C-alpha cells in the first residue's frame, strides 16, 4: 500500500498540471473542474494496480482523464462545454498561420467558443487531446481507434470550424 501511495504521489506531482488543464477544457465552473479533477485522481488510484507499462505513462494518464471526463459529463454530457482562450496552448494547431492573431479579436474567439461547444462530446475529447499536443498515434492509442481514423476525424473537425468561422452555413 505504501508503494502504491508513493507511486500515486509521484504521478500527481508530475501530471497534476496536465490533469487540471484537461479538466479546464470541459467546464468553466470551478467547482465542476474540482470535482472532475478529484474523480480523475480516484480513477488513477483505482487503475494503478493494473498499470503494467504497456502504454506510456502519458497515454495512460490521458486515457484515464478522457474516460473519466466522459463518465463525468455522462450525467449531462450533451451540455458539456469546451473552454479555450487565447492562452490555450497549441491553439494554433486548429488553424492555419495567422488565424490565431485573428482569434485574439474578442468576437472571433467568442465565435470559436460557440462552435466548439456545439461539437459532439467525442469531437471535444479529440480536440482537447490535440490541444494537449498529442500526436495522431497517441490520440489513436487513447481513444482506441486507428491512426488514419483519427486523422480523418480531426481533419473533418478543422474543416467544419474553418468553414463556420469564415461565415459558412451551420450544418
Amino acid at each position, binding site marked *: 500500500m505504501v508503494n502504491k501511495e508513493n507511486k500515486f504521489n509521484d504521478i500527481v*506531482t508530475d501530471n497534476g498540471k496536465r490533469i487540471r488543464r484537461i479538466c479546464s477544457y470541459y467546464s468553466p465552473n470551478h467547482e465542476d473542474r474540482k470535482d472532475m479533477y*478529484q474523480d480523475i485522481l*480516484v480513477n488513477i488510484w483505482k487503475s494503478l494496480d493494473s498499470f503494467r507499462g504497456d502504454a506510456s505513462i502519458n497515454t495512460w494518464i490521458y486515457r484515464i482523464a478522457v474516460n473519466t471526463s466522459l463518465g463525468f459529463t455522462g450525467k449531462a454530457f450533451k451540455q458539456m462545454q469546451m473552454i479555450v482562450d487565447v492562452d490555450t496552448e497549441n491553439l494554433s494547431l486548429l488553424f492555419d498561420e495567422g488565424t490565431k492573431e485573428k482569434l485574439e479579436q474578442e468576437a472571433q474567439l467568442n465565435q470559436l467558443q460557440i462552435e466548439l461547444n456545439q461539437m459532439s462530446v467525442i469531437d471535444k475529447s479529440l480536440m482537447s487531446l490535440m490541444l494537449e499536443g498529442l500526436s495522431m498515434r497517441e490520440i489513436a492509442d*487513447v*481513444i482506441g*481507434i486507428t491512426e488514419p481514423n483519427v486523422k480523418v476525424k480531426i481533419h473533418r473537425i478543422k474543416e467544419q470550424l474553418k468553414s463556420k468561422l469564415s461565415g459558412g452555413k451551420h450544418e
Partner: protein
Amino acid sequence: MNNSKISQDTNGMGSFIDKLKREDNNLQKIFKILKITYIVLLIIYIPIFYFEIEKGGLFQVVKVVFIALGFSTFLFVFAYAQKKIKKISYAEPTLILLKKTEKRYRPFHLLDLASIPPILFLAIGLGLSEKTFLATKEFFSSDLNLSTYLVEARQFLFSGEHWFKMLAKTVNEFPMIIVFMVTGMLIFIFVISFVAGYLLWVSKYKPIRDNALELIKEIEN
C-alpha cells in the same frame, strides 16, 4: 510527497489519500462480510450435516449434498463476479471501455442465469423431505394435465384458500398442493424480482448504457 502535499494538490480537498483508501476498502469490506457470513453458516451447518448424515437414509444425504452444492456454487459465482468487478479499469482505450460499459449495463447477463442453479440447489436441499418427495412423485405420476396444473398454481397465487388449507393441516388430503404452493411461490418470487430488477435497470442503468451506445456510434462513425 506526504498527505498534506496531496491535499494541496487537490485544491485542499481534505485527506484525499484516505478517501482513495476508503474507495478500495469499501468493496473489500463487502466481500469480507460475505466471506465471514459463509464461514459462520458453514460452522452452523457442519454439525447439522453431521447429524443429518448420522440419521442415515437417502434423503438426509441428498439434502446435505444439495445444500453443500448450493453454497459452493454461490461461492463460485460470487468469486467470478468479484474478479470481473476488479477488472474494470479506466486506463483502457476509450472505445474498449465504452464497449465493456455497454455490455456491463445490459439488462440480462449470463452471470444472472448462473445464480439460478445455486438457488434451486438450496431450495431442494432445504425443502427436501419424505413428504415433499412423495408429493412430487405423485405429481409427476398423476394424469394431471398442464392446464389443470397451471390453474391450481394460479389459484395459489391469487387466493388464500390453499394457504388456509395448509394452515389447517389438511394438506394430507391433497399432498400435491405442496407442489402447487412451491411452484406458485417460485413463480411469484421470480416475477416480482424480474419486474423490480427491470424497473431498477430502466431508471438507473439504461441511461448509462444509452450514453455508452451513443458514444460508441459516434467514435465508430
